[in-house]
């Protein structure tokens, strides 16, 4: 699971109002190279919850993202490279995503988050 995915997901358990961002529990993190596509990154930048991405990338061991970002920074190649790396190249292979409100663990195995709810959470 890449951090772009983490940035999109929330706990949707019935009754939960603050299901985002999910806390990342890392058992195994890996890096995979992805082709650099500035156009895609610029496209995604406006949709991203920046703070959640910064926090998530730190948990994954990458601390190069600035605390705050605005669209003028997209002109900088260094910034784009770091953004690219954090968003698309850091993978949570084994671990879990934890609901910030209820503590429910959504397991991540083989890089696939399992977001299916239990019967009593629907």
């Amino acid at each position, binding site marked *: 699971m890449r951090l*772009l995915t983490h940035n999109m997901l929330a706990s949707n358990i019935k009754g939960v109002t603050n299901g985002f961002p999910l806390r990342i529990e890392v058992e195994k993190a890996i890096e995979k190279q992805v082709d650099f596509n500035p156009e895609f990154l610029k496209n995604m930048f406006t949709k991203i919850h920046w703070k959640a991405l910064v926090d998530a990338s730190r948990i994954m061991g990458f601390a190069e993202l600035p605390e705050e970002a605005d669209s003028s920074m997209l002109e900088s190649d260094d910034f784009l490279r770091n953004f690219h790396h954090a968003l698309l190249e850091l993978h949570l292979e084994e671990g879990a995503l934890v609901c910030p409100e209820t503590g429910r663990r959504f397991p991540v195995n083989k890089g696939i988050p399992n977001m*299916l709810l239990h019967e009593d959470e629907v």
Partner: protein
Amino acid sequence: MWYLCVFYHRLLDYRKAEVDSLAHLFGAFGTEDPHNQNHCLEWRLPLHHHPDSPFHFVNLPSEDLARKIANRSILVKGMYELWGEGSSYEELEAAIRNYPEERKLPYLDSGSTFKINVDSFGKVLSLDDQNQRIQGLNYIAFKGRVNLKNPDHKFWLMETDDYGSNNGLPPIVHRRIFFGREVGGADRKLIPTYQLKSRKYLGPTAMDAEMAFLMANQGLATSGKLVYDPFVGTGSILVAAAHFGAMTMGADIDIRVVRDGRGPDCNVWSNFKQYGLPMPITLLRADNNLPPWRPELKEIFDAIICDPPYGVRAGGRKSGGRKLLKGAVSPYTVPDDKRTDHIPSTAPYCLAECVHDLLDLAARMLVMGGRLVFFYPVLREDDYVEKENNFPEHQCFKLISTSEQILSSRYSRVLLTMVKTGTYTEEIAEAARIKHIEFKENHLKWLEEGNLHSAVFSPADAPSAVAPEGKLNKEPKPKYRGKYV
């Protein structure tokens, strides 16, 4: 300028829709308001041709665009600058002689190489006949050298003739001959490369390569775009989108399919690896009925392309126990010590609810002007053509094309392409929430109403001695229409 557009004689309903979509993709209608995709290309038929004929004329703003469309398409055999046409070779000659010299001369130049192909639709021409026809073109002042392998300019002489009505092709009343210069054509090599029989990981409903590429074209998949498939299965649709350069994401409710596949070298990832395509951004296990996207997230996908489970070959599932939704068992709580490895039960997911959820998700998650492309099943006795309003609708979407593929005498599937034209407002979201609860509370009723499986597979009615009068009058589908035509 008008170009002659010749199609492969396949998937007739899909042909013009594909060219229209690609025209959008390559900016035929300018870069004005992306919300407004009302534009359609201008089409016309050659004299006396049936709409199912492979020969069409299309008006395109430039040759460059015609080439781009043809090269990216799956069903365009060739796009041609027409130099002349006629009902006889005499008429053809007159037409070619009349075609402006300044349009012809640049391609007849002594420094260039050329090749003339002879093609016919609905009949076979022997090599001698072909050579004779090429020789007959000696009134065109070709100055260049012939190069059969890699010519600079390809010319095509194409003819169709009255071949009688019973060879399974659309009727052609008059002989028609076309001569033109090729501008571009489809790269059909894609299809054997991606054909399912050489793909490692397959499921029972994997989308065949040709159709998957057509769907990706309808969804305008291209570099820098994000494409989502909520019923990803073995990833067959996303493979096509990724081939065209799009970033992909997929979800499925069946974790065995997305996570495990059939082993470390036979899973969704390996299907992308097999073709050297970039891996999907995400595969996740999620329920389309209860999508796990954060509430503020919207307008992120450029296209949603999918083949929803409509319960004929494979049924959909959603969260919530089968017995639970029926009310046969009371709601229960999973004990704390069993939570970690608990396998949640699922219940059947009827088509109406599935499509409702899909439209709601798409309305929220697609960018403005983004496309929702999906298959929708139709019982053929309904004669859907007359009741086009039966397709699902949503106030945020405009339906721009419907392409039928006949699957059996009982049912067809129709590829619907919709464009997002309206903002997803709070009121729309609220109405969707209410509908969601209605589906949940009337689970059984909806399951019975939306059961397509029984309609498709129930035994035929006892043979009645006399067919009802009405049935005879009904115009049957042309005989040549089948699964791939």
